[in-house]
């Protein structure tokens, strides 16, 4: 039986690093895919619109855990062995993409339609309308909910421990199994989550206030 000391604390901190890596990868990859789906969801081509809507609906209706099981156990049963990190990153990216697609679709749609009409009347192409008129405004609108979602993502990464990937929560469990000092250990784990999430929550709230203050009248 070991006691909870510096090596254990360092182990947990390193695992917190993995939580951050996983969050970043899922957020960036999921964001890229989600951005594409958000635009597809608003495409003038009905087939693209329906495809994107279907994707979002399906992913949002399945627990992330199932996506994770499918990409880890499911694929390995079919002979494709994904390392836990890849399976975890892929599943979380898919999860992120569907949610960000919806958040961003809403943000794009909350830009007044007159902005589309005015820019179309100035002979802009649809791509130019997005780039110069719609997205700059939509991104501002989307910042608070996007950062808010990021906070959820940090916490939800703990789910990947089920496929054996050692991130912050899993590291806490492992150390506890060896030391049986749950109070100290999980307090530390909780504090680390808090240290990551609290500034983000504050940022989200701050952005929201800034937005409200500068809402066009």
């Amino acid at each position, binding site marked *: 039986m070991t006691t909870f000391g510096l090596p254990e604390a360092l182990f947990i901190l390193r695992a917190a690093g993995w939580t951050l890596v996983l969050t970043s990868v899922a957020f960036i990859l999921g964001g890229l895919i989600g951005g594409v789906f958000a635009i597809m969801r608003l495409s003038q081509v009905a087939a693209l619109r329906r495809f994107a809507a279907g994707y979002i609906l399906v992913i949002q209706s399945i627990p992330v855990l199932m996506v994770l099981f499918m990409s880890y156990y499911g694929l390995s049963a079919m002979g494709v062995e994904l390392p836990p990190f890849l399976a975890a990153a892929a599943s979380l990216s898919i999860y992120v993409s569907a949610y960000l697609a919806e958040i961003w679709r809403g943000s794009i749609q909350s830009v007044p339609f*007159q*902005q589309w*009409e*005015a*820019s*179309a*009347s*100035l*002979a*802009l*192409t*649809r791509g*130019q309308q997005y780039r*110069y*008129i719609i997205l*700059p*405004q939509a991104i*501002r609108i989307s910042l608070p909910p996007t950062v808010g979602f990021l906070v959820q993502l940090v916490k939800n990464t703990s789910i990947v421990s089920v496929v054996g990937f050692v991130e912050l929560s899993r590291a806490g469990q492992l150390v506890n199994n060896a030391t049986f000092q749950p109070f100290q250990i999980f307090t530390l784990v909780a504090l680390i989550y808090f240290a990551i999430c609290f500034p983000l929550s504050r940022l989200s709230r701050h952005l929201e206030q800034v937005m409200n203050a*500068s809402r*066009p*009248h």
Partner: protein
Amino acid sequence: MPAVLIDDVHKRFGNLEVLKGVSLTVEPGQVVALIGRSGSGKSTLLRCINGLEAIQSGRIEVAGHIVDQDPKHLRELRKDVGIVFQSYNLFPHLTVSQNIMLSPRITQNVPQAQAETLAREVLAQVGLSEKFDSYPDNLSGGQQQRVAIARSLAMRPKVMLFDEVTSALDPELTGEVLLVMEKLAKGGMTMLLVTHEMNFARNVASTTIFMHQGKIWESGPSRELFSNPQTPELRNFVSAGAH
């Protein structure tokens, strides 16, 4: 060749027929006012002219462009046709000069320096030179509308469409916008404008068209039309002093 030619245009929204066979022409340099009750189809007609609304049948030609819904044709058309809306619709994240320079820069490849000169020119034309670097939110309604006009002018349009551009303004701000439009008219701009400002229609537009229930009910030289309306509908409309 007329600047605007509209021939037997029909437009429906679902089952609601909003334009029921409208025909008219606007000659280059002519100023035409569209008047009529709310819902008579004035805005819709204007929006069909720059392709914001698609028509079901008939033909529209503007400045040598045939109006259809092909995006490429629409862009070429819109380089020659400016439209100003009741709600200004400036881009709030861009400064006044950026609002003005954007389309010339990216749709006509005007170099930056030249675009700036152009922006100063059109801003001077609407009397707002000092607002070059302001954001729209910091301008009054009248100033915003003048910027919207300047933004259209920067495209060097052959035809300008105005849809009740003073209706959202406080009365004391209406005058400054009408003045800009009057100057444009005197400068030879081809203009088609929907307005509730009967004095402006009478004094500035050479021709006034009265729309009623999706049709051109009556039209003619503005002064005659107002002083001697032929139909009871127009007579009612004029005597109601419709604002």
